[in-house]
């Protein structure tokens, strides 16, 4: 299947040494150049070719290096989370996680994480034997009223290092590897990031790169297909006043290979005849997102977080996300958080509610349909040492309770459940122990 996409703007060179760092640093500048070149006021960014952006990125990076300060490693801790998801499409997911972070020198730490997804869904036992919501399939063995239909396991290892010498002294980098496996899909991910504190620690610059290699081998097919993902990202965090901090984020994601869902069925209704086809989508997708966040301290005990994100991609899906989170300390014993998130998106150019004839690209995936969602969140953090209770009497312990109510509305009904509205309930209970 040939992609209809034009050649990508970014030619990603091998990320080796300083050249790789400079290339990553150039991404946000390239982005700004390509979007603001019509603005004379923003003359700083004028210019529209990658080498110029690379040069600017390199110069800026060198300037930043000259004023760097040291950073801190993550704290030693064990964190256990018991998470669950339920929705009105009869999907139930339990996904416990355990994570450990441990320093093994003044400048190095390692973290390990393990996650299990246990999925049950009535739709997995449907006529198509697939789950149209999670795309999970029934295992070859197992399933049934008292057994999970799908189990996914994910393990990750990460390494953090503070750079104490050389040209990049004062910076820190992290490298993470993740492997995920289910009975019809596997994924291996490498993620690296480099961050720097600048301007008397008022500015943090972070560049990152995530690279994934996925394999799909559906139970109902005889083939194995591959997917590769590149995700460079850039984050700039700035303390603006003693009570206000801001963040600017940009991510670029290029996915190529087999992106479709082998289990979703497109029905072509031609007159009185109904024929079933596989989903077919372009074999490349370029996704870009830019976001901004502000966190403002209200008095001594509260903070208000506002976040905006604009997303656009090569499949013509555009979206806008707004979120608001208010948090308040309840003395020293607890912290309460109330959040709201609103999201709306456009439709992919090849998505149709109904196909009358076979087309080059066909999909019924609700994620590519026009719609909106609302998410309501409440979270409570209990700090140890403030209670005369068995676990919470320990000051190194923290308990977290998180509840979300999520509603998604799509313009046309979901292909499998036939509902336009998805209501989901997410519960998470977590414990952190710092040692």
């Amino acid at each position: 299947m040939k992609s209809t996409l034009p050649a990508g703007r970014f030619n990603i060179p091998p990320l080796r040494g300083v050249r790789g760092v400079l290339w990553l640093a150039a991404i946000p500048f390239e982005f700004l150049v390509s979007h603001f070149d019509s603005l004379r006021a923003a003359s700083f960014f004028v210019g529209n070719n990658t080498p110029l952006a690379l040069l600017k990125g390199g110069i800026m990076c060198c300037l930043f290096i000259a004023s760097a300060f040291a950073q801190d490693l993550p704290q030693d801790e064990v964190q256990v989370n018991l998470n669950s998801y339920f929705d009105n499409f009869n999907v139930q997911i339990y996904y416990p996680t355990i994570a450990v972070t441990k320093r093994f020198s003044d400048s190095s730490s390692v973290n390990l994480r393990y996650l299990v997804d246990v999925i049950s869904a009535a739709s997995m036992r449907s006529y198509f034997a697939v789950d149209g919501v999670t795309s999970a399939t029934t295992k070859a063995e197992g399933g049934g009223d008292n057994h999970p239909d799908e189990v996914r396991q994910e393990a990750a290892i990460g390494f953090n290092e503070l750079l104490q010498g050389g040209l990049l002294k004062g910076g820190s980098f992290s490298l993470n590897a993740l492997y995920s496996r289910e009975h019809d899909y596997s994924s291996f991910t490498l993620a690296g990031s480099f961050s720097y504190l600048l301007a008397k620690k008022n500015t943090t610059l972070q560049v990152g790169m995530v690279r994934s290699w996925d394999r799909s081998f559906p139970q109902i097919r005889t083939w194995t297909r591959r997917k590769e993902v590149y995700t460079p990202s850039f984050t700039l965090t700035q303390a603006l006043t003693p009570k206000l901090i801001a963040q600017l984020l940009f991510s670029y994601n290029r996915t190529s290979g087999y992106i479709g869902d082998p289990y979703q069925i497109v029905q072509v209704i031609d007159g009185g005849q109904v024929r079933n086809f596989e989903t077919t989508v372009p074999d490349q997708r370029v996704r870009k997102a830019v976001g901004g966040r502000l966190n403002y301290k209200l008095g001594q005990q509260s903070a208000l977080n506002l976040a905006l994100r604009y997303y656009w991609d090569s499949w013509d899906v555009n979206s806008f996300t707004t979120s608001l989170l208010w948090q308040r300390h309840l003395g020293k014993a607890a912290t309460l958080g109330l959040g709201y998130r609103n999201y709306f998106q456009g439709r992919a150019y090849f998505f149709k509610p109904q196909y009358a004839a076979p087309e080059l690209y066909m999909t019924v995936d609700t994620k590519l349909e026009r719609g909106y969602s609302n998410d309501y969140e409440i979270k409570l953090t209990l700090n140890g040492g403030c209670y005369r209770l068995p676990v919470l009497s320990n000051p190194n312990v923290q308990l977290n309770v998180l509840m979300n109510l999520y509603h998604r509305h799509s313009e046309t009904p979901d292909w499998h459940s036939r509902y336009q509205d998805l209501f989901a309930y997410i519960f998470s209970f977590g414990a952190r122990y710092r040692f």
Partner: protein
Amino acid sequence: MQDGRLRKTLLLLGVLPLAASFTNCATVQPWQRGELADPIMIFNENPIEAGINEHYLDYREGSTGATGAQSGGCGCG
């Protein structure tokens, strides 16, 4: 064409003021950072919790990225 205009307008409204504000660096002195060190002032103070949220949103919506959180590895997208 309208999408292009909308994109530029949103970027102008949202990103440029932020970017401009970043040029006013080093206004906060080290002894003024007490409020900023409060855990409720830290973006994604708990990355694992942020990843949990990102996980269910990524697979129910068509967008991803620029949230500061990372999830993935699942064939359910």
